[in-house]
């Protein structure tokens, strides 16, 4: 028992070191001067300690603007996914309408298509719509996700029907039933999707890099990549920028982790 525990802690410790290590190195690098970053052997405590990297980013580059762009885009995508996926999932789980099986399999089918395959058609479509270099291109195509719909549908299939019948006898229509009874039960799923969707959008690089050309429209990851030089990279600046990318993610996770862990450890209602 205690030996098992010891082994467990050892493994967890190794894993924690592997994940935390790079983060701590980045954090420390973001407070180092450019000479100290490339000094050998590397040190964890920045000496000399400097805030210049941050002030440079904030004063010389539109970093706050990029952060704002990222927040708006990720925010819209997250909220839309959490609610729209839920509504679609509920409809597929409970409402009877012609073609619902076919629709469900089409939605599942889209998950089987590799993302790379659709890059060019989607790009052409967006350019025909005149959406290149706009927020619309980065939000509207991403408002729902097939996997999100599927996740909600599976959850709603497990909710007892009698709850909805009780709501019906209580005088609630379909929308009231959904928002007052059904959706609150799905809180763990909502939290999990909020985290996934926010992370996905916030860290997203490929689409914004392809679709944006005006520097003021950049999202954080695109902006960050723009000052990775062709011949050399100022790692201290990049790492300071990385901290801007990481901090909101940590905040989101801390807010939602209670629900998130609940969502991972329990599947149904009880």
């Amino acid at each position, binding site marked *: 028992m205690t030996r098992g525990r010891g082994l467990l802690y050892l493994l967890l410790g190794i894993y924690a070191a592997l994940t935390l290590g790079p983060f701590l190195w980045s954090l420390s690098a973001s407070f180092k001067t450019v000479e100290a970053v490339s000094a050998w052997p590397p040190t964890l405590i920045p000496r000399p300690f400097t805030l210049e990297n941050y002030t440079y980013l904030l004063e010389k580059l539109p970093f706050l603007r990029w952060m704002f762009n990222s927040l708006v885009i990720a925010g819209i995508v997250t909220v839309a996914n959490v609610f729209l996926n839920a509504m679609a999932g509920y409809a597929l789980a409970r409402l009877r309408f012609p073609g619902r099986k076919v629709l469900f399999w089409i939605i599942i089918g889209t998950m089987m298509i590799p993302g790379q395959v659709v890059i060019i058609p989607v790009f052409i479509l967006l350019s025909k719509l005149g959406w290149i270099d706009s927020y619309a291109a980065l939000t509207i195509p991403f408002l729902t996700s097939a996997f999100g719909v599927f996740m909600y549908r599976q959850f709603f299939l497990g909710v007892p029907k009698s709850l909805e019948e009780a709501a019906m006898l209580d*005088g609630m229509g379909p929308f009231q039933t959904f928002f007052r009874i059904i959706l609150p039960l799905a809180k763990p799923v909502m939290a999990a999707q909020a985290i996934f969707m926010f992370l996905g959008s916030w860290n997203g690089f490929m689409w914004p890099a392809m679709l944006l050309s005006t520097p003021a429209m950049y999202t954080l990851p695109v902006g960050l990549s723009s000052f990775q030089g062709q011949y050399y990279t100022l790692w201290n600046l990049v790492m300071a920028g990385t901290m801007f990318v990481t901090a909101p993610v940590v905040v989101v996770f801390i807010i939602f982790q209670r629900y998130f862990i609940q969502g991972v450890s329990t599947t149904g*209602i009880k």
Partner: protein
Amino acid sequence: MAAVQFKAVTKTFDTTVVDKMDLQAREGEFVVLVGPSGCGKSTSLRMLAGLETVTDGSIHIGDRDVTALHPKDRGVAMVFQDYALYPHLTVEENISLGLKVRKLDPAEITERVASAAKVLELEKFLSKKPGQLSGGQRQRVAMGRAIVKRPEVYLFDEPLSNLDAKLRAQLRIEITRLHRRMKKTVFYVTHDQVEAMTLADTIAVMNEGKIQQVGPPMELYRHPKNRFVASFIGTPQMNFLDAELDGLTLKTKIFSLRIPDGLATEFTDFPKHFTLGCRPHDISRAAAGAGTAAMSADMVEQRGAESFLHCVQDGVSIVARCEPEDAPSPGENIHLRFNLARFHYFDSETNERLVAR
């Protein structure tokens, strides 16, 4: 005028599960629908609630034809087998939500919730969530949710079947008391005939989608209309024996009895062969003699106040009641006397009752 009326109600899914059901309840009557699993009880109740459409026929509450009405407009409240409490709301919110949705005056809501909580002894739990309550307490909350609506008709679908025996007995009494107080029409579905007998003003026995017999509990017990009702009502089950008439002698495989002259007229139109029914309570141990059946005791079922003997002879099995102190040991040879005055007779082909008493 009937408070609730099913008129030739039929429900067909893939097959017909409720077949031309006619049933009515008087104002304030406690009607129990009872029958084996899958006989269509829940479906009937759900049609009355409006949770299931009616394939054919019509349902009336008071003088309104509610067949096509939305559940919320029917003036009914339902208690579900799994309680169907909203898990994320407190007891108080669970009870009051239906009233809030109907936009009742908040003062009125508070008053109704308080009075229901008092009647059901839920005051201590009002701020708890359903997950923190025991089964019996959840059941009470479900009843509270129904009561506050002040419905015309209460619907219960096996509300006690998830509870242990002791709690079930206790809640049966509470429901009876509640009904006496509310004086509202109740439709109650169960497959438990003890529950049916103890709760009902009127029992409707169903089998395979058809109503078999409707009547007060004791009438069904004393005068079952067919073999199905006879076997369904009363525990242990009624014993059935193949019998024939030879003049005025009633013959079965295990005993023969002379029919007293006074009763002879009842048997004038009998077919030669028929089925005889006799309840365990109408059979007793006796000394060997004319008219008794010699049997071998197979097993004794002790119930405390009384015992039931399971006996066999010539491939015939009989269950008889006896006093616990009279119980034989297994394998012992004993004699049983059958009380002819309490016999039931059924047609062997149609299973219908032969003497209309």
